[in-house]
């Protein structure tokens, strides 16, 4: 089925209004797009994070689909239980079989750090669900602390900048590759500015026979220090500079997605975010060179994987 915005706009919005996410937040943009792209009715599990605390203020909820939240780390386990319970009830004849999609929305803290072991277990057990990581590169909900998704050199409240340390000293974890190593049917990396790419990936994940994982870059205007209207532009610069390449891994076959163009230097993306202002004020800063070198290295490795998959 083709993706046409005018057709999609005829469907009722499954994610409502009045939530407490910041003005210009990319998470609600991506959540609305993902729910609009799904063809079956979804059941959602939430991990603790920005999205969960600002959309489920008791006694209210922003969601118009069934949502379950239990704790920070175990959203993958929760959805495993929901999926297993549904299958058991159908098997025992206590519930009619119907098309359903099980979806998890978790932040990068819940995915990269706190819920990693739970997610890995759920993927290994092979439950059929879509895990969406809304990656804003930090613990933004509690006040901008570093996570293992935060970029090298970025300012956060736990990686202050000064003479001794230039922001976060470590390179971030490549979670998408780690998940791809689980050998699950569908893994992808998407970004919030490219709705078509994201929605296409959600449709493919829904069709996959087994667990699927989509890592969505959702720029945070408060944590990354940019103006709220620049959200889509920053997301685009992150992709175009190679800091967040868009790709998918279908049954172990790697493929780049999105528009092909010449890669921009990383400085373009870093300049758009004031969390890097301490390193971008000097264009010769060695941290910028380190980031560029590492991005080049990872880009080449990714291209090699795609080339190898294309020749198979």
């Amino acid at each position: 089925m083709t993706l046409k915005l005018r057709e999609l706009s005829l469907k009722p919005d499954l994610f409502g209004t009045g939530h407490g996410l910041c003005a210009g937040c990319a998470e609600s943009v991506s959540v609305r797009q993902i729910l609009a792209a799904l063809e079956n009715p979804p059941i959602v599990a939430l991990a603790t994070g920005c999205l969960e605390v600002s959309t489920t203020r008791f006694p209210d909820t922003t969601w118009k689909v069934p949502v379950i939240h239990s704790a920070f780390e175990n959203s993958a386990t929760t959805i495993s239980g929901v999926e297993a319970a549904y299958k058991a009830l159908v098997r025992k004849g206590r519930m009619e079989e119907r098309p359903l999609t099980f979806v998890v929305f978790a932040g990068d803290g819940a995915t990269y750090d706190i819920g990693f072991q739970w997610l890995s277990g759920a993927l290994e057990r092979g439950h059929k669900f879509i895990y969406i990581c809304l990656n804003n590169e930090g613990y933004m909900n509690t006040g901008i602390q570093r996570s293992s998704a935060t970029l090298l050199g970025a300012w956060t409240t736990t990686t202050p900048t000064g003479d001794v340390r230039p922001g976060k000293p470590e390179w971030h974890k490549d979670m998408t590759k780690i998940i791809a190593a689980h050998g699950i049917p569908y893994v992808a990396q998407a970004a919030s500015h490219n709705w078509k790419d994201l929605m296409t990936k959600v449709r493919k994940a829904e069709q996959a026979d087994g667990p699927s994982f989509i890592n969505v870059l959702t720029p945070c205007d408060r944590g990354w220090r940019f103006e709220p209207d620049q959200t889509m532009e920053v997301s685009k610069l992150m992709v175009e500079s190679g800091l967040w390449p868009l790709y998918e891994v279908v049954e172990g076959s790697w493929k780049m997605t999105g528009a092909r163009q010449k890669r921009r230097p990383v400085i373009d993306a870093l300049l758009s975010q004031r969390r890097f202002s301490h390193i971008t004020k000097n264009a010769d800063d060695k941290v910028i060179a380190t980031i560029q070198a590492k991005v080049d290295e990872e880009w080449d490795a990714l291209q090699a994987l795609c080339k190898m998959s294309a020749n198979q």
Partner: protein
Amino acid sequence: MSEQPLWQKIQPGGIAINPGSTERVRTGDWRTEVPVVDFDRCTHCMICWVDCPDASFEVANAKLVAVDLNHCKGCGICAQICPVKCIEMVPDSAADRDESVNENGVT
């Protein structure tokens, strides 16, 4: 939210039973700038609708018809991404405010 319900009236297990009920929270009060759409130039491409964090573009029969000012937080993403640049952010005036909204932003 002005009147707290007694515990006997609360759903067991903290279950929220009204889908989409945050609609009663008027997040439009956060706004300092308001998007004004020039409908003569609008091509109804729906890119503002799909990229709006607050679902504030009202559509009917695949056409953009209005902006939901009760919930638009005035982030300005729409004005930036509009391909024909028919959305302009202008300073919001208090005259547009809904007087029935209390200090918690709830009607």
